[in-house]
């Protein structure tokens, strides 16, 4: 962009840096503390995802409260389970339907690499990263709810590191 870029204009203003950084703080606090998930269970990991939402682990505490059935309101897509080739266009469409900024969490071995089905399966997609950009990988088969929460906190930290000056983590 040229000199009319609003970011650089603000930065050239006296005190512009302060403005940007406090804006960053406010935006990042909102974004990181309000991650709504797309309800998108594929296989075993979905059950542990449900467990993470249930009483014992209660991810509502961290603001992951609202499971959104419609991708229009989702902030992150937790790919929980095996991705096969027939599912690829659906996942891609869902990702495109989510509004920016959007994040993808690959939960479990299957979503990371194809997991136990890497060999000898003619339908497997070897990792959801082949389809959509992934922000956090959570290993396990399936990962425990604690692991999922940990992964989501890592995502929160990454969001807090963002700035309006730079492009978001995911520019698809």
């Amino acid at each position, binding site marked *: 962009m040229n000199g009319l870029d609003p970011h650089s204009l603000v930065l050239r203003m006296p005190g512009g840096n302060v403005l940007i950084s406090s804006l960053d703080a406010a935006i990042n606090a909102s974004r990181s503390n309000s991650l709504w998930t797309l309800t998108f269970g594929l296989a075993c990991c979905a059950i542990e995802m449900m467990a993470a939402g249930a009483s014992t682990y209660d991810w509502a505490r961290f603001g992951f409260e609202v499971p959104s059935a419609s991708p229009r309101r989702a902030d992150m897509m937790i790919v929980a389970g095996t991705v096969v080739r*027939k599912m690829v266009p659906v996942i891609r469409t869902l990702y495109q339907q989510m509004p920016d900024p959007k994040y993808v969490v690959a939960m479990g071995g299957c979503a990371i690499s194809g997991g136990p089905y890497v060999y*000898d*399966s003619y339908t497997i997609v070897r990792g959801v990263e082949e389809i959509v950009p992934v922000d956090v990988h959570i290993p396990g088969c399936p990962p425990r709810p604690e692991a999922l929460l940990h992964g989501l906190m890592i995502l929160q930290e990454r969001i807090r590191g963002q700035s309006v000056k730079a492009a978001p983590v995911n520019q698809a």
Partner: protein
Amino acid sequence: MRSAEEIRDALRGRFPGIETRPVDPALSVTVQPDALREHLVFLRDELAFDFLVFMTALDRPADGAVELVYRLFSRESRTSVVVRVRLPRDGARVPTVSDIYRTAEWHERETAELFGVEFAGHPDPRRLLLPDDLEGYPLRKDFMHPNLVRLPEVT
């Protein structure tokens, strides 16, 4: 209560020259493709085998054959019968039994796409599990696919 022997005798009485052998706790009957429906109707109506547990196929490339396996169960006598049909690998074709056992409809669709067996008269011969662009019959022993990477042999 009928025992396996009684069922065998009943089958032999109805269809002389039928090939039977005991397998596991069940009785195995090999029939000709044309006679399959007749046998199943007889087993269902006369011998109360009202439950098709599953049907599938076995690929026998050495014999150049595909073997269909229908496993029936009778809730009345608590016995099982396995009905087998041997078909040539090329142009395997057998009449559908989905009107005799409704559950066969989906099992046949699955077998058709995985083994390349044609079920004549099937009410809904679309693919069931596989994407449309997949070529070949995955469960045949000689199936090759670019996405199918074999597990390296570990010794």
